């Protein structure tokens, strides 16, 4: 879902840059929460590794029936691990590195960070939080609640990001709006299954191996 340069019109590009930068500035101040713990210094190399993992996964395309492929976006995954505001900054940095290799444009970076970081990360996180409120009323184990919520949140957020990406392309006049929305959503209904599975597997593994690395337990109501 990496928009290239020259696809979006200037107004759409600028509006999405403004939204993304505003959210990132807000996120910059909000993320200080994760550094409040005494051993928070240990988190920094971990954030570096997580960013590298997201870079790797976004780079690797898995096949989808019909001659198309998909790759992990990772917004919801990062937001469940580190919090919604950090995820926008992590995704923005990953997308910046990718643009150095020509994967996604530089002028389209604001739009890409909006789709993958804000929709995938922040909206994805609040979908997970909403689902956790429902699952917290059940007798499922903590790991299962978070894992299932992450899978569903990642899936819904990816389809939502595809819908908005289709609207952005349609607004820019590159291809007809209805076509852009319907085809983007159709393919991402399939691609989202991979996103959900990978995100859920990683979260489940962390919860089993080192649950304190998930910094959002309190926000999700599992502590």
């Amino acid at each position, binding site marked *: 879902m990496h928009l290239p340069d*020259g696809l979006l019109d200037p107004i759409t590009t600028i509006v999405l840059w403004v939204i993304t930068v505003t959210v990132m500035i807000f996120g910059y101040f909000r993320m200080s929460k994760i550094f409040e713990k005494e051993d928070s210094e240990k988190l920094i190399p971990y954030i570096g590794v997580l960013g590298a993992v997201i870079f790797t996964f976004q780079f690797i395309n898995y096949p989808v029936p019909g001659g198309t492929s998909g790759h992990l976006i990772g917004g919801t995954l990062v937001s469940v691990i580190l919090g919604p505001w950090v995820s926008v900054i992590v995704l923005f940095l990953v997308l910046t*590195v990718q643009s150095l290799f020509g994967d996604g444009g530089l002028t389209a970076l604001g739009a890409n960070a909006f789709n993958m970081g804000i929709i995938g990360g922040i909206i994805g996180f609040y979908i997970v939080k909403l689902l956790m409120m429902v699952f917290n009323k059940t007798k499922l184990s903590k790991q299962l609640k978070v894992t299932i919520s992450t899978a569903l949140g990642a899936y819904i957020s990816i389809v939502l990001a595809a819908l908005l990406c289709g609207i952005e392309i349609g607004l820019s006049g590159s291809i*007809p709006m209805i076509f852009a929305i319907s085809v983007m959503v159709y393919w991402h209904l399939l691609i989202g299954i991979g996103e959900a599975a990978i995100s859920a597997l990683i979260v489940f593994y962390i919860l089993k191996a080192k649950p304190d690395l998930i910094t959002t337990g309190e926000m999700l109501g599992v502590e």
Partner: protein
Amino acid sequence: MLALSLGFVVGVLSSDPDGLERTLIDGNGGGEEGETWIDNLPSLWNPPLEFIANDYVIGTIGIVITFILMFGIFRLRMLLKRKA
């Protein structure tokens, strides 16, 4: 996580266009015509590392740059917070 990443590299790589590329290709005549349309989109940005063609080299360099960038920015944020 690294094991999963490696598994994907070895197992299920696909060179087919992704969902967005497929949408753009199909929306602009399909097949080669659509791919040419994407390749000809105007851009003022010349990606400085685009000359690297090998996927594994791109992956390795990208991982290193991403790690350094993340580590640097978040470390700086923490130091600033402590000073404040």
